[in-house]
């Protein structure tokens, strides 16, 4: 009996890799990311350029852009998200099956960018778990490719078959939903100080 097992092992030694099931699943997942392009502004153009032939995102196994969240496992938030759009974004995120990851692409998605107004959400990470942030306005395709590579590394390191690595993350990972600086700014605004226009008669 023992001799038989030895003989079998001799036969299968060539061409067989021993690994953990978790690692194999992570390897499969990281090399076949299907992005959900949530492109709301000019970052979306760079996202399209990244997927096009010059930069060719399919070299990294994530070229299959799907416009239904049910078939995606990577949400790329590319562009500013306004307060009317955020419930839609959250709903799409919840519709995506596990395991799923999120890339916040560009200054607006990460922090609101230059749009510090009443309507623009100051960073999607306040209301959504984000894995990778990409700076830039808009970021170059190379930066998005780097983010995908970084995310692949992250998936390989943390992934499990059952997605248990997410179970312990009960707290929001972004900044607080309400910026404490906002309270200070609101106090400073009262009383209202407006620059009064002065008419120049010579003008």
């Amino acid at each position, binding site marked *: 009996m023992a001799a038989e097992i030895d003989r079998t092992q001799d036969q299968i030694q060539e061409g067989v890799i021993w690994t953990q099931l978790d690692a194999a699943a992570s390897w499969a997942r990281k090399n076949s990311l299907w992005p959900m392009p949530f492109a709301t502004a000019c970052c979306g153009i760079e996202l399209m350029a990244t997927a096009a032939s010059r930069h060719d995102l399919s070299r990294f196994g994530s070229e299959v852009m799907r416009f239904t969240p049910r078939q995606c496992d990577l949400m790329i938030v590319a562009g500013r998200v306004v*307060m*009317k759009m*955020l*419930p839609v974004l*959250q709903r799409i*995120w*919840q519709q995506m099956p596990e395991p799923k990851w999120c890339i916040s692409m560009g200054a607006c998605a990460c922090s609101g960018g230059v749009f*510090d*107004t*009443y*309507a*623009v*959400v*100051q960073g999607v990470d*306040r*209301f*959504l*778990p984000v894995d990778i942030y990409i700076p830039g306005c808009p970021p170059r395709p190379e930066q998005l490719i780097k983010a995908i590579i970084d995310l692949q590394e992250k998936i390989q390191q943390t992934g499990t078959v059952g997605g248990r690595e*997410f*179970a*312990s*993350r*009960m*707290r*929001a*990972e972004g900044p607080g*939903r*309400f*910026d404490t600086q*906002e309270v200070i*700014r*609101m106090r400073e*605004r009262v009383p*209202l100080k*407006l620059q*009064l*226009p*002065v*008419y120049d*008669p010579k*003008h």
Partner: protein
Amino acid sequence: MTPETTTPVDSPFAEIDAGLQSYSHTWQVFHGQKKLIVSAGDLYNVMGQLKTAFGFSMLVDVTAVDFLEYAGAKDRFEVVYQLLDVEIGTRLTVSVFLNEPSLTLPSMYPLWTSADWMERETYDMYGIVFEGHPNFKRLLLPEEFTSFPLRKDYPVQGRGERHNFPVLTRAES
């Protein structure tokens, strides 16, 4: 340079001035552009005359201006209508001054259907109410929004509306 208050003598504005004698109105000229200022009560009749008798067949724009803390301003809001005679290309600005709490104007929808979205946007941003509008609600902002953002006493960064959402975490999404 401040606008001058004069009565125009050139055609067709002199004829318009004569035709509107029964309504109290003033004219302002600024860089050659003529603005007709009427009262809120006369607005609908004046606009009706401008359309039927003077051929202003198109309402190009409806918007408002908030003059809070503006130097020398007497009234809080000015609602501005831009009219265009598409046959001869004459443009006319008609404006009405309003003060709180009576921020109500008649809707121009029966005269020009193009007033539909423009009046809704003016309500959305300034809180001017247009009576007689067939579908009067907010146009751009969500319907549960309570402020009027283009008023000068509304802070640019808002009153916390942009933070008013549930937070999704990894474990629960």
